[in-house]
């Protein structure tokens, strides 16, 4: 049990030798010299995720690499009488845009292009701001991180659309939708970026350069 009177509230939990359990959020006393286990759920305790910076950087770089095949390869092909051209995510969006389906094109474009890109740029920026001074306040950067985490799943939108169309559009030899390799690359990119966001430790943002900075 922690005696509240001995806690220095001008300092963070790390300086006060506490650790919040990542699993059950119980606040435990923490002894850096030994392996600490949570009093409540027996999970391993850590004040900061070990190697969070390196892991996030590595996974973000991987998702940047996967970003290219995801957008360059066709995610599906609409075959009319056995013929047809592959549609990448961007060309599909452009087609919808030209056909007057502007709101729905905007949703697809934002969810499957803007979100992944913003996520990657955001994570790179957050990593940069851990090492170098940043103009954005730490509170706003924490918010930024939460949004990055929250928007992750929405990038799967296009993959699900492909799943529905592939299954639904099968009118004999007349009209058929076939999935393309871009869908796999896209799914991998989304997964990698979700893992990258999860491996980041938002407490790193509050660790750097003293407590006076807001």
């Amino acid at each position, binding site marked *: 049990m922690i005696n509240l009177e001995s806690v220095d509230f001008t300092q963070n939990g790390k300086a006060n030798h506490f650790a919040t359990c990542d699993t059950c959020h119980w606040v435990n006393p923490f002894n850096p010299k030994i392996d600490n286990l949570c009093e409540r759920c027996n999970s391993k305790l850590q004040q900061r995720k070990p190697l969070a910076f390196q892991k996030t950087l590595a996974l973000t770089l991987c998702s940047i690499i996967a970003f290219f095949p995801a957008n360059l390869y066709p995610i599906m092909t609409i075959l009319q009488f056995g013929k047809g051209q592959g549609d990448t995510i961007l060309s599909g969006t452009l087609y919808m845009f030209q056909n007057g389906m502007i709101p729905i094109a905007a949703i697809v474009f934002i969810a499957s292009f803007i979100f992944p890109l913003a996520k990657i740029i955001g994570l790179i920026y957050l990593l940069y701001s851990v090492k170098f001074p940043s103009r954005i306040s730490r509170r706003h950067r924490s918010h930024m991180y939460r949004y990055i985490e929250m928007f992750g799943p929405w990038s799967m939108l296009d*993959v699900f659309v492909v799943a529905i169309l592939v299954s639904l559009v099968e009118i004999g030899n007349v009209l058929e939708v076939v999935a393309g390799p871009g869908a796999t690359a896209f799914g991998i990119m989304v997964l990698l970026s979700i893992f990258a966001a999860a491996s980041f430790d938002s407490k790193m943002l509050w660790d750097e350069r003293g407590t006076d900075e807001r």
Partner: protein
Amino acid sequence: MPYPVLKEGQQARCRQCRHIVLYRKPNPVNRSVAIAIAGLILSVPAIFLPIMSMKMFSINSTVSLSSAVYALWLNELYFVAVVTCFFCIFAPIGKLVIALILGLQIKMDQIKRNSYMPLIKFYQKIDSWEMLEVFMIGILVSIFKLRADADLFFDLGLVSYILFMLSIVALKLSFDKELLWNKVVIND
């Protein structure tokens, strides 16, 4: 360290970043048991009944959640098929089953030591991987894509899918993980 005691409906925020640290949801146990039962019943029609059908040259083709996953598998997109199956079928059902088991354990006042904690941990693991609402928007987008070229008909599966999705959203709003953790007895 004990949390400050919050009444149902109150929330506590972080001093530094204003993020909500703790939020006591109103009537969490009864609500999540009810929602979990409803969601599990709805999951069967939502997954297997056709969501919509398309008619063209007097040929009819339908799509359901399960057939969409199967079609991906047949298209040799094994990775995408497995991932979709997990995100849209296994993760939501897993959440509902765990919420039901845990809710019943609390309601009957019989917390099973060896299953209670692992189940909460498992719930937390699959929580962020459930993407029913994204699939819902996917249904909308495909409706718009096909609307101009083909006749679309909506089936009972769409209604049950929407209700299934709403039950997952409702579970998110009523299932109180912190309350469940607070029931774990600490032995020093």
